[in-house]
């Protein structure tokens, strides 16, 4: 029997309507706006000023603090300004504005297509390359990859999990790279395997992507035949269920180990990386190519042209949309990411980030929330919650501000997957209130534990 995570989950319609569209390269726009806050943790500090000439792949932002990442210029051109610009939520963030000129790559970057399969012996070299090329997790959280690959010395990983679940409806960018660049992904996995010193790598892919499973298996077989570095890498077909791509859920599905409340995957000996991150690791280490572009799915039933595009970081969303024919009249909401966990876009002039995986358009009818009615205590939210929580209860507690009870009922375990709100027949905005309460409870827990340390 195919594996999946043990508690809860929902089955939204797949709607992978852009699955058949091969990845196209989007022409670079006239101006790019590169955000300094593209990763979890401290925003990068811009090290260029207006008037500077930059080359493609040149560092323009340096990390501040341990959890932070380098930011590179995705184009060649002249810096026009460094200053606040609104991100997709309309919140002012420091951006570097660059007027684009024809591409001229910074030195030391291999821009050829040849596959480099030889794995460097020195893990430190690999980590340094990952760090200096600004690789961050592309599964959604944009956590700096080098930090994740270097767990504290008292914790040891024994399995690396590559997340190819792509359990959200509509999204197809991971699917396309698994079909088009499977070998690069596997080389990336082998690189991370070397860093972590693990013997086992599992690529988890949901059963609704048979072609991707096939291609990845082929790639592993071909590479394993050439070198022992690729031993122990396997593909695992998973049952289709949302949120399979959640870190904790994927570990549970593949290894049957459950990460403790407030714990990290490394606590159970697992490290999870997205397949897109693995591709970025390959580029960073084998080609010394920084993370300056990524695959973005532009989709939605109401959108005239489904596509998967290779987009330079910092490209304004409006440029991508205009390139594909403009925003359709019937679209009501634009979402960055999937329909379950993605962020609604408030500002279409915002620029793409490293972690932007999709722009999804939904119509009023698909997305407008229905008026809230009485809770009928059906328990569908609790049934759907992959963390085994009771959203109906948490919602009530949150609305009354009962922090102690919220903590007892494990609101801090919520992964914000949206299953509760998705399945609520009374249209109660469960996750809205729970998310807020979760933030406050985590703040309380941190403030309580901080002085002791």
């Amino acid at each position, binding site marked *: 029997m195919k594996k999946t995570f*043990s*508690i809860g989950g*929902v089955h*939204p319609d797949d709607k992978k309507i852009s699955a058949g569209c091969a990845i196209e390269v989007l022409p670079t726009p006239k101006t790019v706006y590169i955000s300094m806050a593209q990763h979890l943790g401290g925003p990068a500090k811009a090290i260029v000023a207006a008037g500077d000439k930059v080359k493609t792949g040149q560092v323009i932002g340096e990390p501040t603090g341990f959890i932070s990442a380098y930011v590179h210029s995705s184009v060649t051109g002249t810096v026009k300004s460094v200053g606040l610009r609104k991100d997709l939520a309309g919140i002012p963030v420091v951006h570097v504005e660059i007027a684009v000129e024809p591409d001229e790559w910074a030195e030391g970057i291999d821009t050829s297509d040849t596959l480099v399969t030889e794995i460097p012996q020195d893990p430190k070299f690999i980590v340094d390359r990952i760090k200096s090329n600004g690789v961050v997790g592309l599964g959604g959280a944009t956590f700096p990859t080098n930090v994740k690959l270097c767990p504290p010395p008292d914790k040891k990983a024994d399995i690396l999990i590559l997340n190819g679940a792509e359990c959200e*409806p509509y999204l197809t960018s991971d699917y396309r790279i698994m079909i088009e660049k499977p070998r690069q992904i596997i080389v990336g996995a082998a690189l991370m395997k070397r860093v972590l010193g693990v013997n086992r790598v599992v690529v988890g892919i949901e059963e609704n992507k048979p072609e991707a499973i096939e291609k990845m298996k082929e790639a592993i077989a071909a590479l394993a035949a050439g070198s022992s570095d690729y031993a122990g890498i396997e593909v695992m077909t998973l049952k289709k269920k949302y949120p399979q791509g959640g870190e*904790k859920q994927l570990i549970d599905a593949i290894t049957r180990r*459950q*990460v*403790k*409340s407030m*714990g990290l995957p490394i606590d159970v000996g697992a490290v999870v990386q997205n397949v897109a991150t693995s591709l970025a690791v390959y580029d960073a280490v084998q080609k010394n190519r920084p993370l300056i572009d990524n695959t973005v799915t532009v989709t939605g039933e109401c959108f005239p042209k489904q596509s998967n595009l290779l987009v330079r970081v910092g490209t304004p969303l409006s440029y991508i949309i205009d390139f594909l024919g403009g*925003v*359709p*009249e*019937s679209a*009501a*909401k*634009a*979402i960055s990411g999937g*329909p*379950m*966990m*993605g*962020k*609604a*876009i*408030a500002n*279409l002039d915002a620029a793409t980030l490293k972690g932007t995986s999709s722009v999804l358009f939904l119509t*009023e009818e*698909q*997305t407008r*929330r*229905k008026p809230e*009615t*009485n*809770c*009928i*205590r*059906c*328990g*569908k939210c*609790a049934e759907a919650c*992959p*963390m*085994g*929580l*009771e959203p*109906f209860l948490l919602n009530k507690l949150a609305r009354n501000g009962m922090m102690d009870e919220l903590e007892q009922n*494990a609101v801090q*375990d919520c992964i*914000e997957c*949206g299953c509760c*709100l*998705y*399945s609520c*027949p*009374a*249209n109660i*905005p469960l*996750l809205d209130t729970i998310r807020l309460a979760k933030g406050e409870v985590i703040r309380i827990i941190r403030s309580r534990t901080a002085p002791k340390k």
Partner: protein
Amino acid sequence: MNKLLVSPSPHIHSKTSTRSLMLDVVIALLPSVIVSVLYYGWSAVVILASSVIFCTLLEYLITRYLLRKPCTLGDFSAVVTGIILALNLPPTAPWWVAMIGSIVAIGVAKMTFGGLGQNVFNPAITGRVFLLISFPAIMTTWGGAKGFIGGADAVTGATPLGIVKEGLMQGQTLDQIFAAHDFSYAQMLFVNIGGSAGEISALAVIIGFIYLLARKVIRPYITLSILATVAIFSAIFWLVDPTQYTDPLFNLLTGGVLLGSVFMATDYVTSPMSDKGGIIFGVGIGIITMLIRYFGAYPEGMSFAILIMNSTVPLINKFCKQKKFGRA
């Protein structure tokens, strides 16, 4: 598109709504409704219509004039209550009995608590129990109705459970009672020889149950645990003394056990949320039902059992939580 819609995730919703769930329940009730109409004829139509009309009308009037809140008729919960109440009444009951039942069900059991979702007790059963206690004669007399098919007009008197209870009280053994009356399991399964509109056909209820399961409206645990408990409980007593205690199949097929366990005990609002809680709830209902049937004054105990267990639901919910992820 002029303004971009912004909301927190998730941005899509399963198409389930309170209304769609309630409509599914109505559809699942249709087989029982059809059987009762065919078998009891116009009197069943009158009782069904009056019950549904009074339930919806009352809910409308209360939300409109007393609570002054938006009308909640659109969720169809009042219709469900009306149908279930009607199926719990003898079809020969006059229309005003249905009206009083509706007033108790909607007015007392549901709206005083704040409407759908807030009530502690199942409205339809509260209505039925109120009627059973207030009008025992009307509520336990069957027959005289002219059906569209079959010879229902020949049937008068009590339900099989009532006949058995009375016989046992008069000192007869089960063999004598069964010899005097012609109960067959096939009859009970397809069209029973007496009983309230919803009790007469076990098969119709089972069809509804399968529909509800297939549509994922309910989970099977509550229903199955009630049926299993009733079967096991009666099997033990029956094996000990087959002359005094009726057999498991008889107990499963008669009275409101099937109707109650499929449609009334599984009411979302008044049943536990977790599967574990549902099983405890179901076992409790099964035991109380059989205790009343074997040792109580009433021949039938399903309604009382459900009401009693309804009151324990908050406790069950508190202590039967599902296992949380990553917590021992």
